[in-house]
C-alpha cells in the first residue's frame, strides 16, 4: 500500500472512532447521566421533592419561571416495584405569557432512584398540534422536528451545567 492510502485509512479509522465516541457520549448523557441529575438518594415516597428539583431545572433551562403545580400525581403498582410521578406546572415566559410544562418521572428499580422521563413545554410554538395535513410542508416539518430535538438536547446540557455549577440551587428552600 502506498503512503497516501495508508494516511487515508488512518484518517478513516480516526473519524470512525470519533463518531463512535460521540454517539457513546450522547447515549451516556441522554440515557444515564441526565435523567438522574440531582435525584439520587430521594426515596420513592419523596416524589414531591424529586418533582420539585426536576421542574425547577427544566423550566429554568428553557427560560421559563416556575410558579406552581397545576396538578401532580403519584402512582405505584401493588404487585412489583414500579412507581410514577407526573404533573403539569404553570410557568411564566420572559415576555409575560403563561406556559405549561409537563414533568414526568419514573422510579428506576435498577438504580433505586427517580429518573427524569419525557418532559416538555406543552403547546410550545414548535408543537405538532398546530400542524395540518398540508401545512407546514415536508421540509418545514423536518426542520421544526430537528430544531425541537436539538433544542431539547441543548436545554438538557444547560440544565446539567447549571446543576454542576450549583448543586443545591435547584431546590425550593425548606422542602
Amino acid at each position, binding site marked *: 500500500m502506498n503512503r497516501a492510502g495508508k494516511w487515508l485509512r488512518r484518517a478513516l479509522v480516526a473519524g470512525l472512532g470519533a463518531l463512535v465516541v460521540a454517539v457513546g457520549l450522547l447515549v451516556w448523557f441522554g440515557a444515564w447521566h441526565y435523567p438522574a441529575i440531582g435525584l439520587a438518594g430521594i426515596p420513592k415516597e419523596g416524589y414531591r421533592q424529586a418533582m420539585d428539583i426536576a421542574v425547577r431545572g427544566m423550566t429554568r433551562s428553557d427560560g421559563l419561571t416556575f410558579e406552581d403545580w*397545576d*396538578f401532580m*400525581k403519584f*402512582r405505584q*403498582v*401493588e*404487585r*412489583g416495584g*414500579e412507581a*410514577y410521578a*407526573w404533573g*403539569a406546572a404553570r410557568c411564566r415566559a420572559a*415576555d*409575560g*405569557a*403563561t*406556559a*405549561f410544562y*409537563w414533568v*414526568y418521572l419514573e422510579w428506576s428499580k435498577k438504580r433505586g432512584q427517580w429518573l427524569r422521563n419525557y418532559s416538555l413545554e*406543552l*403547546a410550545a*410554538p*414548535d*408543537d405538532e*398540534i*398546530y*400542524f*395540518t395535513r398540508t*401545512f*407546514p410542508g415536508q421540509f418545514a416539518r423536518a426542520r*421544526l422536528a430537528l430544531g425541537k430535538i436539538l433544542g431539547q438536547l441543548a436545554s438538557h446540557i444547560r440544565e446539567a451545567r447549571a446543576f454542576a455549577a450549583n448543586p443545591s440551587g435547584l431546590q425550593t428552600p425548606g422542602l
Partner: protein
Amino acid sequence: MKRLLSRENVVRALLLVALGGTLWKGFLKTPEGATLVRPQSFYNGLVNDGENTAIMKERHRDVLEATDKAVRVRLEELRAGAYKPAPGSVVSEQSLTRAVRKDQATRERAVDDEVRAFEKLERARRLEAAGWRMGLGCAPAGEAKP
C-alpha cells in the same frame, strides 16, 4: 464391546438434558404450564401488567388534558394580546382553535383506552380470585369465564 461411559455418550446425555430443560422452560411460558405449575407468579405478572397499563393510560389522558388547558390559555392570551407569536410562527388564532378540536378528538380515544385498561386489570384480578387454570384439553368454544 463399546464402553457405556464414553465421551460421546456423556455429550449425548448432556444434550438430552439441555433439550429437556428447554422444553420445560417453553412449557412454563405457555398459559397452560404457567397456570398449572406456577400460578402465583403467573397472576403476579398478569396483575402487574394490568396495573402498569392502567397507570400509563391514565397518564396519557392527563397529558392530553394538560395540553388542552395549555392551548386554551394560549388562545385566551393571544386574543387579549398578552401572547404574541414570533414572526413566521405556526401559532395563530386559527391553529390554536384547531388544536383545541384536535386535542379533543385524541382525548375521546384516550378516555376509552383508560376504561379498557381498567377493565383488563379487573379481569386479571377476577381470574386470580376464581383460581382459574388453563386446562390441557380443548376448552369449549367461547371465552373462558371465571
